[in-house]
């Protein structure tokens, strides 16, 4: 089948509403499944049964303090990554763009690692995510400074790459200077990305930034649609492109920065999910935003459940699992792209 014919068959089917409904159901199921699996070995049925016995307090504690925040965090972070990926791909009009591209997630990781390195994270509980948020905001400020207010898309990408390299270099420096193997292990483990053992406090810290960022991106859906026709035409349709660009970038930085600050880097969700769902909404960037948020939540919850079901001695980190799924998928996209160009 030729590329043209395959997109013909895809575009004729726009199933955004049905897909959203299906993903919603899947997310609800995954959410409860996420509550039902864990290291304590208590399944959902056992939990309900024992909730009335003498272990009632332990069971409630496990659910409320360990599994519930983990499930909610998966929902929140997954949808943040999916939404940010869809928004950035729409803004840059590039299906291979990843939310980390603009430098905010690398800088958030650096900020968080710095609090580990300098021992701030031991002083008070929220030091680490606050450090991450500070890193993300610094990254956007630097991006603005480097690319300039009127900076074009290419300048933005290049500035983002520079910021990412610099964050990675500084993170490596901190690892290099870490005082003990234990400190190195702590930093590396955090960097791998995980939803495990996060508290509600961390959740409440990230949630407002993720929600505010999401609103910024969702409000610009129509501008992303118009951008499908290029910048001149989008402008002629009444959009102030410079403002749109910085609103979307701020939205991506807030959501991804807040997500990374709490969970560490969870890659590929923001790349893979929008790409998979785009044909379902007839390639409309605006319709993709909300659906991609749902898809991100589903993929993240599913991955986080899968890693808990794997019979390994140490629990795999979520960032490792998403990368193991995502990297081959990215390779597949590149190969498909090569075929469509040839």
């Amino acid at each position, binding site marked *: 089948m030729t590329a043209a014919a395959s997109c*013909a068959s895809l575009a004729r089917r726009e199933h955004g509403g049905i897909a959203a409904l299906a993903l919603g159901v899947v997310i609800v199921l995954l959410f409860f499944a996420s509550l039902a699996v864990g290291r304590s070995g208590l399944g959902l049925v056992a939990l309900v049964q024992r909730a009335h016995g003498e272990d009632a307090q332990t069971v409630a504690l496990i659910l409320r303090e360990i599994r519930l925040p983990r499930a909610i965090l998966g929902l929140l972070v997954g949808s943040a990554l999916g939404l940010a990926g869809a928004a950035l791909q729409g803004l840059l009009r590039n299906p291979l763009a990843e939310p980390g591209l603009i430098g905010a997630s690398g800088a958030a990781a650096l900020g968080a690692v710095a609090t580990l390195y300098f021992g701030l994270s031991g002083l008070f509980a929220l030091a680490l995510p606050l450090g991450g948020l500070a890193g993300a905001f610094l990254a956007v400020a630097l991006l603005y400074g480097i690319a300039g207010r009127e900076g074009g898309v290419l300048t933005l990408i290049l500035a983002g790459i520079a910021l990412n390299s610099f964050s990675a270099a500084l993170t490596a420096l901190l690892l290099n200077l870490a005082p003990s193997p234990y400190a190195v292990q702590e930093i590396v483990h955090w960097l791998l990305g995980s939803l495990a053992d996060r508290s509600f406090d961390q959740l409440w810290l990230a949630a407002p930034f993720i929600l505010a960022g999401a609103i910024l991106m969702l409000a610009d859906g129509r501008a992303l649609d118009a951008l499908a026709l290029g910048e001149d*035409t989008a402008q002629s349709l009444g959009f102030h492109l410079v403002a749109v660009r910085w609103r979307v970038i701020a939205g991506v930085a807030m959501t991804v920065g807040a997500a990374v600050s709490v969970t560490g880097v969870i890659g590929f969700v923001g790349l893979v999910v929008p790409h998979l769902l785009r044909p379902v909404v007839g390639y409309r960037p605006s319709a993709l935003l909300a659906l991609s948020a749902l898809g991100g939540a589903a993929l993240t919850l599913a991955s986080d459940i899968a890693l808990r079901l794997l019979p390994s001695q140490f629990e795999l980190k979520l960032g490792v699992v998403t990368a193991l799924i995502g990297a081959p998928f990215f390779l597949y996209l590149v190969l498909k792209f090569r075929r469509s160009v040839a």
Partner: protein
Amino acid sequence: MIQLRAQGMTVALGGRPVLSGVDLTLGAGQLVGLVGPNGAGKTTFLRAMAGLMPLRGGQVLLDERPLAETSRKERARRIAYLPQRQQVEWPLSVRRLVELGRIPHLEPWAKPGGADRAAVEQALRATETTGLLERPVPTLSDGERARVLLARCLAGDPEILLADEPVAGLDPYHALKVMELLGLRAASGMAVLVVLHDLALAARFCERLVLLADGRVRAEGAPLEVLSPAHLAESYGIRAQYGQADGRHYLVPWSRLDAEARR
């Protein structure tokens, strides 16, 4: 009376002057052709007329009001701009593409309503593209694509249409069809300014031509006066053959002057 007017328009790109003091008035019901050699500043002029370029001097007036003082929304509703080689980044369906033309009329967060659907349908009918509704844009032929892109502009019910080479790359049949469409829109009251490289088409369809060369208006008026032998020699360096058919004058670009001189 709807009118878009350039007054002493001066534009520089990267410090290089591209337009120097260009005056042009486009009124309702007119189909005006903008012609001139490559690099004359036609595209820059059209972008500036659409309010997409900062001016170094002069101004653009929309109904005697500076364009820069109108709101983005008002501009978007009243002026449609069709760029040269319009890109369509995602394989959108024709329906979704044409719907984009309604964006200036939508309230924030609202879905397209009955009036929007009616306008889209009318634009599709006017461009004879109703049958392409569910086709993805990348599968269209160049002729279909050109008409669909025009439909996107018409869907917004603009008073003014600025089209940059809408017939580039089309075979004569489809080029004639697009020009007829533009003529019909002008006849129904739209103000249409179109950049053309095909001088025969320009002379055939436009009631008035503006010849731009080196960023200045060299001639303006009836097609055959603007495309006179002297003007063609000076601006394009070519000679044309002139004739008459169906009671109208036509011309065909014939030879390069420098090639003739060498012979």
